[in-house]
């Protein structure tokens, strides 16, 4: 099975494929294994793409949004808020700065003070939502300027809060990619197993073919083409089912977070189409290696 015979292996004649018996069991095993693996791979892919998106969104929100808290004697709050807003609007890198309304603040604090909270009775600090633009602002410079001009202002950049969430999303994404690797490995193992079983079961067929003068590349090619085709068909069916399953999942909702946000977006839909190609390549390599070993053993 020298390199020059690769073409022979890939594109043998139609006759050649008939000489290998249609082995029911290994065919089913290969179709089933590649189908199941492709199915799982779609979900793993969806998981890692979705958690990747989540991680990216959170990471960018985390970097791009902050809160300014103004704690001051009641009569100075309005003035300091106005001053802070002015400063923020002058700061390069700040996209938007907005003082939260009393209602918004009440909603945020309701968990602590109960729904019947009257903000007027409490010296609650005023919150200002700051949104960065692409470039981002210089947090240290901003803090310095604020401390000089708005003594009651504290800049809170949320980092402490969201970092663990971003980390969790990133580790989910890693989990997704690792699963895809494991799935690919398991598929290669199953197809090797099936190809070896087919070759072992057909020891007599191989003997007959050699007796009548068949080359090794001819024999190997018949097996390789068959298993590659099966893996291709099996994983195509698997991704079709997998994509169907992903479509049936509840649509991503804003609160949903991890579990409901699964699914593909835009060009992401092209990713799963790579799976059958990968599956077929895996089958090709696994079967060729198995045939090569087996044919050398039998000689």
């Amino acid at each position, binding site marked *: 099975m020298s390199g020059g015979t690769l073409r022979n292996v890939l594109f043998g004649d139609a006759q050649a494929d008939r000489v290998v*018996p*249609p082995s029911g069991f290994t065919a089913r095993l290969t179709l089933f294994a590649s189908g199941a693996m492709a199915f799982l791979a779609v979900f793993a892919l969806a998981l890692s793409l979705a958690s990747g998106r989540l991680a990216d969104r959170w990471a960018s929100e985390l970097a791009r949004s902050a809160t300014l808290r103004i704690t001051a004697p009641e009569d100075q709050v309005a003035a300091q808020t106005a001053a802070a807003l002015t400063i923020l609007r002058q700061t390069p890198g700040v996209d938007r700065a907005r003082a939260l309304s009393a209602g918004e603040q009440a909603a945020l604090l309701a968990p602590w003070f109960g729904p019947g909270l009257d903000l007027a009775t409490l010296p609650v600090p005023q919150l200002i939502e700051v949104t960065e633009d692409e470039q981002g602002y210089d947090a240290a410079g901003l803090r310095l300027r604020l401390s000089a001009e708005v003594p009651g202002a504290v800049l809170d950049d949320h980092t402490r809060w969201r970092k663990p969430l971003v980390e969790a999303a990133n580790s989910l994404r890693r989990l997704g990619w690792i699963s895809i690797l494991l799935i690919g490995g398991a598929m290669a193992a199953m197809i090797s197993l099936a190809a070896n079983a087919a070759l072992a079961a057909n020891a007599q067929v191989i003997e007959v073919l050699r*007796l009548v*003068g068949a080359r090794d590349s001819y024999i190997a090619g018949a097996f390789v083409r068959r298993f590659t085709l099966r893996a291709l068909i099996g994983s195509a069916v698997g991704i079709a089912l997998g994509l169907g399953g992903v479509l049936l999942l509840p649509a991503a909702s804003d609160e949903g977070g991890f579990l409901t946000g699964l699914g593909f977006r835009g060009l992401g839909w092209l990713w799963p189409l790579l799976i059958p190609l990968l599956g077929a390549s895996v089958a090709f390599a696994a079967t060729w290696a198995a045939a090569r070993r087996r044919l050398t053993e039998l000689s």
Partner: protein
Amino acid sequence: MIELDDVGYSYGGGELLSNVSVKLAPGSFHFLTGPSGAGKTTLLKLCYGALTPTSGAVRAFDADMRGFDRDQMAMLRRRIGVVHQDCRFLDHLPLADNIALPLIVSGRDMAQESANLRELMTWVGLTERADARPPELSGGERQRAALARAVILSPDVVLADEPTGNVDWEMSMRLLTLLVELNKMGKTVLIASHDLALIRAAKSQVQARVLRIANRRLQLAGADL
């Protein structure tokens, strides 16, 4: 064509064949006899390279087989037609395809060869069974099919191991005639058989030498055969 030069062979235990030297000249006709278990099948396997001698050398068409790679071996098999003692077929293909198998694997144009195939199947009396799968054949039918498969490529050498063990006398004679015809066309023929009646009948049709394996050696049989 095929030449064994001081060949010895052992399956791992004691030596089964020792100092065997024989030359199958082009166009010669040989029989090989000997008691059951003497090593007739083994000797045939040495001739077509299914076994490698433990000592000595086998030459086929003037090339030493020891240096053959797998592709050269495949090419050699296309020039040697072999009838196995336990005839093996591809059980999923119909009989006609099994007989045509050497044509298929060597990439011949089947349309051109179909007349040849049909004539051969008629000669061995299998036309009616052309669509049967090999497991549906009777013992004799399998042997006839194996012989047909061995000669369809019109090989330079035919090695037949007990080709008439399961057929009646009349059919034995038909098969023998086929081999004698091939020999008259210049092919080299070697038949392993314990059927002395067959050997005697052949000697009346063709000039055949009878080799006998006894006590690990190959001898030329006496005039009694």
